[in-house]
């Protein structure tokens, strides 16, 4: 490891510690995110994988300061962002302070590119807006920069597109525009929440490749949130698997796939239909369904569906513990441990 890499190891770009979010729902308090911790280095991609209701999107919104204020019952923990040699504590910022960060420091790409864009403004105006607000460019400068950005995200005829409205573009093109807006002020951290889920498979691949190329070129830290292990398998440096609001396993990508320890990670991995399997192969389904996060029962949230469940799992919640270099899991009886029958 070189010296400069060592430096960045010490001071991560983004550090999340014990992030906990409780939201007020119609049926009670939703334990949406519980004790989530991770770090993100400059130039790295963290994949966050989870099913619906695992808390991954709420976590992303908490990092962006975009939780619905009136519905937030509790927001605890620490989120530290290192910028310009300073460390900002994001959860302590006022809305006014946060607003100066969104765009130039932190940016987000959402799942649905139609609702993320304003239907009554031209694309040019929407891309230029953050440039004028944050970078102080005048309108002509901002439009010139918007043109460059559209070209960078691979939109043909960017000049003509500047004057068009969102409905005149296909889904894939719209998502490229959303990416252009997110990147307009050169953010240090990019949160991408299911950025390709609404897109067709041939377009998904183009958009993912584009995101990765831009991330490498600009040395951003990227959090790529998805329900599809396949999306992050070849793209993330590290993967965190979330279940019921908690990270249940965290590891470098290759290690996660070669030596997964948490039974949920394995079950999720096995339940995905593969192209390499012959037709009519029986799938490994996980019995039951993900838990409701209102008044969660004590113990491990995966216990009711877990093949390795023991008495202890129903009483205590396992903490995220070290299982080797950069590999963490939250399980009392992880795969490969002695207590579990072979």
């Amino acid at each position, binding site marked *: 490891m070189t010296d400069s890499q060592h430096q960045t190891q010490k001071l991560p770009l983004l550090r999340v510690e014990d992030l906990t979010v409780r939201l007020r729902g119609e049926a009670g308090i939703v334990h949406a995110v519980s004790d989530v911790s991770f770090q993100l280095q400059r130039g790295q991609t963290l994949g966050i994988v989870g099913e619906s209701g695992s808390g991954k999107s709420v976590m992303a919104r908490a990092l962006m300061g975009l939780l619905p204020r009136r519905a937030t019952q509790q927001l605890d923990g620490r989120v530290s962002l290192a910028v310009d040699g300073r460390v900002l504590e994001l959860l302590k910022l006022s809305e006014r302070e946060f607003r100066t960060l969104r765009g130039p420091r932190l940016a987000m790409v959402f799942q649905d590119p139609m609702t993320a864009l304003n239907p009554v403004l031209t694309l040019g105006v929407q891309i230029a807006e953050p440039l004028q607000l944050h970078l102080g460019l005048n309108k002509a400068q901002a439009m010139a920069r918007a043109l460059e950005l559209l070209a960078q995200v691979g939109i043909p005829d960017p000049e003509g597109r500047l004057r068009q409205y969102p409905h005149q573009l296909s889904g894939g093109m719209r998502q490229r525009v959303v990416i252009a807006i997110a990147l307009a002020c050169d953010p240090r951290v990019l949160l991408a929440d299911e950025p390709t889920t609404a897109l*067709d*498979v041939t377009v998904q*691949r183009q958009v*993912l490749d584009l995101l990765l190329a831009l991330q490498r070129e600009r040395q951003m830290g990227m959090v790529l949130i998805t329900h599809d292990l396949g999306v992050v*398998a070849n793209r993330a440096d590290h993967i965190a698997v979330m279940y019921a609001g908690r990270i249940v396993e965290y590891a470098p990508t290759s290690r996660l796939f070669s030596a997964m320890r948490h039974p949920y990670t394995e079950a999720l991995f096995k*339940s995905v*239909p*593969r*192209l390499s399997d012959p037709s009519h192969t029986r799938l490994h*389904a996980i019995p039951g369904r993900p838990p409701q996060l209102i008044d969660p029962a004590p113990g491990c949230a995966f216990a009711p569906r877990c093949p390795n469940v023991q008495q202890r799992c129903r009483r205590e919640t396992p903490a995220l513990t070290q299982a080797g270099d950069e590999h963490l899991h939250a399980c009392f009886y992880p795969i490969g441990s002695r207590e579990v029958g072979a």
Partner: protein
Amino acid sequence: MSETSNPQLRARDDIVLKVEHLVVTFDVGRELVQAVSDVSFDIARGETLGLVGESGCGKSTVGRAIMQLPPPKGGKVIFKGQDITRLEGEALRKTRTALQMIFQDPISSLNPRRRVKDIIAEGLQIWERPNQRARVEEVMEAVGLDPETAADRRPHQFSGGQCQRICIARSLALDPDVLICDEPVSALDVSVQAQILNLLEDMKARYQLTMVFVAHNLAVVKHISDRVAVMYLGKLCEIGSVDAVYQHPSHPYTQALLASIPELETSQEDAIPLLQGDIPSPMNPPSGCRFRTRCPKAQAICAQQEPAMQASPSAIDDHFVSCHFPD
């Protein structure tokens, strides 16, 4: 549009459902969109045909056109030797009992005000079938719902996966021959998706179903299908057995689709060039071959002449492709 010949239709005596020259158009303002244009295929008894393609390719429209929802603009849908596009009223409704359908969003497919047992029994009541209660209990048990606890509840008390089980039970109540599944697992979480796919396989065996399985996920389609038809912008590109289409894809579009899938196995570095651009608007499809604007192999002829269905160079039985330069 001229009708093409259909070498892909098989001469077998166990064909349950045959679709010939199917055309479906929609009015969009002043214009007409041809959502499905001249599609033909057949399905033998006990087969599952997977229908794949990206959004807007017409795959769901084909599924609905088979059900006569709405009746297609042109072509025939021949079910057990009878062209059902010519049926109307009572005769059509009666035939539909043998053709059932399940949909993508299981929650919105169920009436939220009704109890599960009434939802499942509705078809039985309409057709005044005997032993309704026993039949409802039987299909509920078959799909993994406990009649004791589930029968009197309403859809909102169930998760998406459970609601899809209710939809499957409802579709099976009238003992259909053909089950048309329109993206039945794409709204479900991965862990629940596997349960429903396994269930559909079990139900197919238990009730001797013939299935049409419409989906955009090629891995899912491979798991459940015997034959696969690939569609692009309302046209059939390729059809063949699962092994033929997945091991020896002949159409450049099929190859690109297969190469685009994010796979768990690492290092899938592409031998096949990635597709550029987006799907053109079906309002104004390209001339000749509709895929040519994104095709890495496109030549002048592709813009001039629409390719006809022909036997694939793979030389596998019943493997057909519509391309001027197939592999």
